[in-house]
């Protein structure tokens, strides 16, 4: 069973430390997103990377449309991976939607986690006037879903049959092997709906694990007021403003991202 989970979620373990740090990718790409950050933790931690089912090089056959139509299904993936590796006192680092996924996983199994590090998180992307501004209208999310439908990025399920039908063209197989951020458009669309139409504001007060909110500058997806909202409603949270701009500091500003995470863990004595 645990072997099956490790294969299903394309789990990669490295590092020389004992305390596990689990890096969870956000909506869009896969564990590759942590390429500039994860190696910096290998000296002192046990580094765990994985792909959610439906993303990256996970096992698409395990994709269950119902399970992955809500973020709870993704939280189940996190718990499955931790259980398969028998992890304890986990430091969970989640980018974007994985911030909320980590919160949901910690509500289910608070004893499993030592700290949660949330990189650019948002409990709700859609505006709910007059009290809450997530940054997007529902029509904006429809616009995103329209883009998802029209962009077949390294679409594995599209490429795979083409590869199978053309054995004399090995370059097609290579293209499939090297495809980055490859996503089946149906899977991506459902992930986008689960992510950007979710409202997890009511879950914030249920969290018992201490957390770090890493708030980027000029982040259109998780703006500063969303970070403020989270820090007000998430018990035991620390808000850190980053110099990094945009929504992907782990890719655009990896040094600052590594430094801030390490400082937070050191302050908690979790080295």
């Amino acid at each position, binding site marked *: 069973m645990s072997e099956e989970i490790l294969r299903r979620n394309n789990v990669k373990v490295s590092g020389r430390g004992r305390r596990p740090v689990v890096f969870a990718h*956000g*909506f*869009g*790409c896969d564990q*590759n*997103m942590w*390429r500039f950050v994860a190696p910096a933790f290998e000296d002192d931690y046990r580094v765990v990377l994985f792909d959610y089912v439906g993303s990256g090089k996970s096992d698409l056959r395990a994709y269950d449309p119902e399970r992955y139509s809500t973020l709870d299904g993704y939280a189940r993936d996190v718990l499955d991976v931790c259980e398969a590796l028998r992890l304890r006192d986990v430091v969970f680092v989640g980018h*974007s939607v994985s911030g909320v996924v980590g919160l949901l996983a910690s509500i289910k199994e608070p004893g499993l986690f030592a700290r949660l590090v949330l990189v650019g998180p948002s409990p709700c992307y859609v505006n709910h006037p007059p009290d809450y501004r997530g*940054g*997007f*209208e529902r029509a*904006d*999310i*429809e*616009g*995103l*879903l*329209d*883009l*998802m*439908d*029209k*962009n077949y*990025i390294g679409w594995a399920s599209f490429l795979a049959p083409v590869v199978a039908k053309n054995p004399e063209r090995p370059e097609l197989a290579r293209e499939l092997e090297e495809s*980055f*951020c490859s996503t089946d458009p149906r899977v991506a669309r459902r992930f986008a709906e689960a992510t*950007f139409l979710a409202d997890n504001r009511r879950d914030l007060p249920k969290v018992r694990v201490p957390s770090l909110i890493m708030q980027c500058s*000029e982040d*259109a*997806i998780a703006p500063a007021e969303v970070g403020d909202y989270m820090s007000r409603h998430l018990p035991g949270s620390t808000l850190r403003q980053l110099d990094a*701009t*945009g*929504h*992907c500091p782990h*890719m*655009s500003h990896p040094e600052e991202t590594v430094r801030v995470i390490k400082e937070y863990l050191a302050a908690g004595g979790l080295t």
Partner: protein
Amino acid sequence: MDELLDTAPCGFIAFGNDGHILAANATLLGWLGLGAGGLAGRHVESILPPGGRIFYQTYFFPLLVLHGRAEEIYLSLRGAGGEEVPVLANAARRERGGSPVNDCVFVPMRQRRRFEDELLSAKKEAEEANRTKDALIEELSTPVITVWDGVLLGPVIGSLSRERADLMTAALLRAVVERRARVVILDITGVRTMDADVVRRLTNVAAAVRLMGAECVLTGVGAGVARTLVRAGIELGGLEVRRTLADGLTHALRAARAPSLHND
């Protein structure tokens, strides 16, 4: 900027790692209704609608950083007056002056988008029609016919996959309860290929029926099937077998008329 690039029939921007636009050509500025220098220092996101900004941050930018390029990406640009320009974008990342710069060209695709919209909606309709057809086939593939009071007939035609055997078991059990059946005839005259797996599935169906308190009769067992059973060493222990459907019906009617053990 190079004059050729400035007026080339494609839009062009260069932007830094933080998304700030370093250069934009006149063609693009014209599409967006902006004057010279209209994008200087602005963020890439400022020419995208909100949904496009999410797409930029979650797909476009990661592809550039991790893969060094992004190709054939469909985007919609937003001009100064709010008008949208559907484009296909290609972008590549390279080092200039010690820091990464992302070069990006846009080609408008108004006509093609209309065509793709139609393709997409046709695809969705086809998928919907397929789902309806599958549901219909599923229904037709597991018919349960009442041939006499208390006697049901389940004809098996074609091939008997595991999924179909499961569906059939469910349909038969439901019918046994709802129609108070005492005998179920499983007719396999129309089964295309018979192997050990199929036989096992059939005996499982029969066992489930018996557990519901009804007798199960297997009919349509020809010479080929008999040979398969013998060769595979399979016994149909406890299962009534009749060669033809007619024989099975005669047996079933007699059994159904016999005094009932149930108190109904």
